[in-house]
C-alpha cells in the first residue's frame, strides 16, 4: 500500500488531462462499495485500498461512465454551498489523481 508518487504528466503525453468534457468510469477490477463494518465507502483496487473522505465519496458516486465532469460539478454545485469554481477545481484534482493511479479509466 505504498504511495505512487505525484501525478506525472510525462513529456510523451502520459496521463490524459481531465477536463469538463471528460467521462470517467471505474474499470472492472476496481470496486467502489459501501462497507458495513466501517459504515463507510471504500475503493478496492489491485494492491490498493482507499478510504475516501465523505466529500470524495459524493464525487465518486457520480462517476458512472456516462456523466461528464461538468455534469458532476453541476450536480454537486446544486447540492453544496460552495462556489462552482471551487467545486470544479477540487473535482478535477481528485479525478486526475485517480486517473493517474488507474483507479479510474477514461
Amino acid at each position, binding site marked *: 500500500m505504498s504511495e505512487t508518487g505525484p501525478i506525472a504528466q*510525462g513529456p510523451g503525453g502520459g496521463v490524459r488531462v481531465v477536463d469538463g468534457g471528460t467521462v470517467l468510469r471505474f474499470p472492472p477490477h476496481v*470496486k467502489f462499495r459501501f462497507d458495513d463494518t466501517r459504515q463507510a465507502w471504500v*475503493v478496492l483496487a489491485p*494492491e490498493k485500498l482507499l*478510504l475516501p473522505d465523505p*466529500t470524495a465519496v459524493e464525487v465518486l458516486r457520480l462517476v458512472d461512465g456516462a456523466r461528464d465532469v461538468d455534469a458532476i460539478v453541476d450536480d454537486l454545485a446544486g447540492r453544496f*454551498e460552495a462556489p462552482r469554481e471551487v467545486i470544479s477545481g477540487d473535482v478535477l484534482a481528485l479525478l486526475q489523481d485517480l486517473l493517474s493511479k488507474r483507479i479510474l479509466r477514461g
Partner: protein
Amino acid sequence: MSLKAAADRSPGSVVGPRPDPPLALLAELTHRCPLRCPYCSNPLALERADVELDTATWRRVLGEAAALGVLQVHFSGGEPLARRDLVDLVRHAAGAGLYANLITSGIGLERRRMAALAAAGLEHVQLSLQDSDSAAGDVIAGRPGAQGEKHRAAKVVREAGLPLTINAVVHRRNLERLEQLIELALGLGAERLEIAHVQYYGWGLANRAALLPSRAQLDRATATVAAARLRLAGRLVIDYVVPDYYARRPKACMGGWGRRFLNVTPAGKVLPCHAAETLPVLEFPTVAESSLAEIWYESAAFRQFRGTGWMGEPCRSCERREIDWGGCRCQAFALTGDAARIDPACALSPEHGLMARAQAEAETAPVGLIYRSYRLSSARGFR
C-alpha cells in the same frame, strides 16, 4: 467544500479502547514452492504440507476475516497454486465480499486454472519476476526455465482479462538491469510494477552480504524509477519500496503492529506480519483456538506492540512515534536482540552503525547464495 484526494486514511485515529478493524489478510496457504529464492519472505522454519490447514478451516477463516472487516485477501505462500483447493477458496472469499488477489510465482499457472480462478471471482494477479535476464532470473529462482514459465503465466493472466502487477525484488545482483526490468514488465502487459528492494529478515538476512546494494546502486535505481514514472505515466504505475538500510528514519512496518494487517500461516498461526515468528518473545494464537476477531482485539500477541505504550526512548517522546511506529520489531530483534528496542534503521538508534557495517560487509569479497529449502530449514534447526 474541500475535496482531498482519496488517500490511504491512516487508521491512526484509534478512538476508544478498540483498534480499527484490519484492512487486509495475507493468507499463506502453503510454504511449498517450486522456487528457492534466497530472499524468500517465508520464515526459516518452513511449515510442511502435513500441518497445513484444510479447506474447511480456510473457508471458516475467510468468513471470519470478512465479518471482522477485512476488505482484501492476498492468497500467497509459498506458491498458492500448490493448493488444489485454491479455486474453491477464491470463490469462498469473493462470495464473502473480499477482494481476492493472487500472489504467485506463475509456475504451473496454465490457461484452464486461470480461467477457473477468474470465474471464481479473482480480481488481480501479482506475478513475481526475478530479473530481466532469463539466465540470471533462473539462478535467483533456483529453477532452470523459471523465467520462461513466468512469461507464459503473464500472458495467461492477461488473456483471462485480469489486471497484472509484476513484483520485482531488486538487489545487488540485478539492479544494473532495472531499466530492462521495467521494459519487460511493460512488454508482459503489466499495469503495475512493484520494485521492491529485498527486506532483510529470515532468508534475506541470511543472504544480506550477497544482496544488499551499494549506496551508488541504490541512488541510480531511485533515479531510474523517478524517470520511468514520468516517461510511463498513464501506462505503468510503479510502486517503489526502498531498503531501510540507507534510511534516516525507519519504515512504518505493516503500517504499525496490529493496525492494518493479519497474516495466517499455512498451519494456522495468526501473526501481525509474516516475519513475526522470528520474535521469540511471543506465543502466537492459532485459528484453531480462537476466532480472528478475538485474536485481533484480545490476544496478547497483537496487543504487545500495538500503539505507542510499549515504546521506550527515544521513540516514546519522538514526534514521529505515530508515523513510523518505532519501525520494525523483527528488525530490532534480529539486529539488537531486543524486540522492544528502537529499529536500528533509525538514525536516532544507538545501534544505527550496524547498518553501515552491513553495507561495508556487502562491499567485500563476493558471497554465495543460501537458497531457501526445507532441507536447510530442518538441518539448521531453525525454529
